[in-house]
């Protein structure tokens, strides 16, 4: 019974998408850390992606309203900062969804050289044609989690979900 309602809550959360990246759910993104169900009450522990991410408030509201609409009577949201969120929590199927949507998925997190000063930047393959002949235009894109690139093979600008 408890397992069923736990699975049901997770199923509902898997329909709640990141408003900025609408192919990924809050579960796939790794924002949802734990779900505990007690009767008709559900406690969801989340962790923020970037501390200033404006989409977080929207995700919190969407999580609450989806669970209420799904039959739970009380939703408690908790925030946890440790361990800090990382794109390494994103599964391979989730990365493939990102690529199919047109966003180059994150590589695995390496401790970047802090002050590279002229060092080469990691190659990001174009999500449209797969070419590695791309250059970084800006480390900062429309949201903190994405950088801007250009593919010289298919001449498309594209976004990259940064490894973080």
């Amino acid at each position, binding site marked *: 019974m408890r397992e069923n309602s736990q699975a049901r809550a997770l199923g509902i959360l898997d329909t709640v998408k990141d408003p900025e990246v609408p192919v990924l759910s809050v579960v796939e993104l790794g924002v949802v850390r734990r779900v505990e169900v007690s009767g008709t009450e559900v406690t969801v522990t989340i962790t923020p992606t970037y*501390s*200033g991410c404006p989409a977080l408030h929207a995700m919190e509201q969407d999580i609450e309203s989806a669970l209420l609409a799904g039959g739970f009577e009380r939703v408690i949201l908790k925030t946890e900062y440790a361990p800090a969120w990382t794109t390494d929590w994103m599964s391979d199927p989730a990365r493939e969804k990102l690529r199919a949507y047109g966003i180059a998925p994150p590589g695995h997190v390496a401790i970047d050289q802090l002050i590279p000063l002229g060092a080469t930047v990691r190659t990001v393959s174009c999500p449209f044609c797969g070419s590695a002949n791309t250059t970084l235009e800006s480390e900062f894109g429309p949201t903190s989690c994405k950088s801007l690139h250009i593919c010289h093979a298919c001449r498309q600008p594209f976004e990259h979900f940064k490894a973080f």
Partner: protein
Amino acid sequence: MSQDSGSRIEGRGTALPEYLLRLGDDRLVLGHRLSEWCGHGPVLEEDIATANIALDLLGQATMFLRMAGQIEGQGRDEDALAYWRDENQFRNASIAELPRGDFGFTILRQFLFSAWAFHHLGALATSANAELGAVAAKALKETRYHVRHSSEWVLRLGDGTAESHRRAQAALDELWPWTGELFWQDEVDAELRTAGVAPDLEPLRAPWEAMVGDVLARATLTLPAGPMRMSGGRRGRHTEHLGHMLAEMQIVARSHPGAKW
């Protein structure tokens, strides 16, 4: 003006919320200054970059100020602390509140502050207060790329054209004396250091200077030799600039208390 902080610190367990205000206010004030570039960046990419970094700082301020309000226990949340305190209740280092200046000034300040925050947060991440340590570790991840972004620009501006070099050096000369305050410590730090909650800032000075000196040297900029300024931001004694900045930052919240949108 300073008697408020003195009496608040003594023996009433207020060292931690006071320390959290310092951490939060540095980021709230610096983040606001950085956000002033939104729509005014020298190129579109930098407009976006500075806005993103400003958002990170605002997010970090939210985490620290929320904790400060919770531990203080007087029902003030992060918004109340941001919008309903006056300038002598702010605890940021003065370097954060100076007007944004030109792009060179903004970049040099981000670089000097981020390099300091990188070392400070790194030491704070092992705090005996687990929640504070977790928030510091979270902020540290973002601070790494703040250092990278600003140091790349310090290099370009310092070792760029004669004009960019002149402006970057002028910015450094003006900012350098304000960096002394980043290592200033008082009984708040001492109490928390004894409890293992906060790090000693003194041992962080040499690695900070090494990091800063390395980038400045490669950028062909000269480290100023003059003395550090006396400044009292951590005690609520600020430059004339903070009040003006707060007037703009707080006016909407104060004109429409409790408004939601």
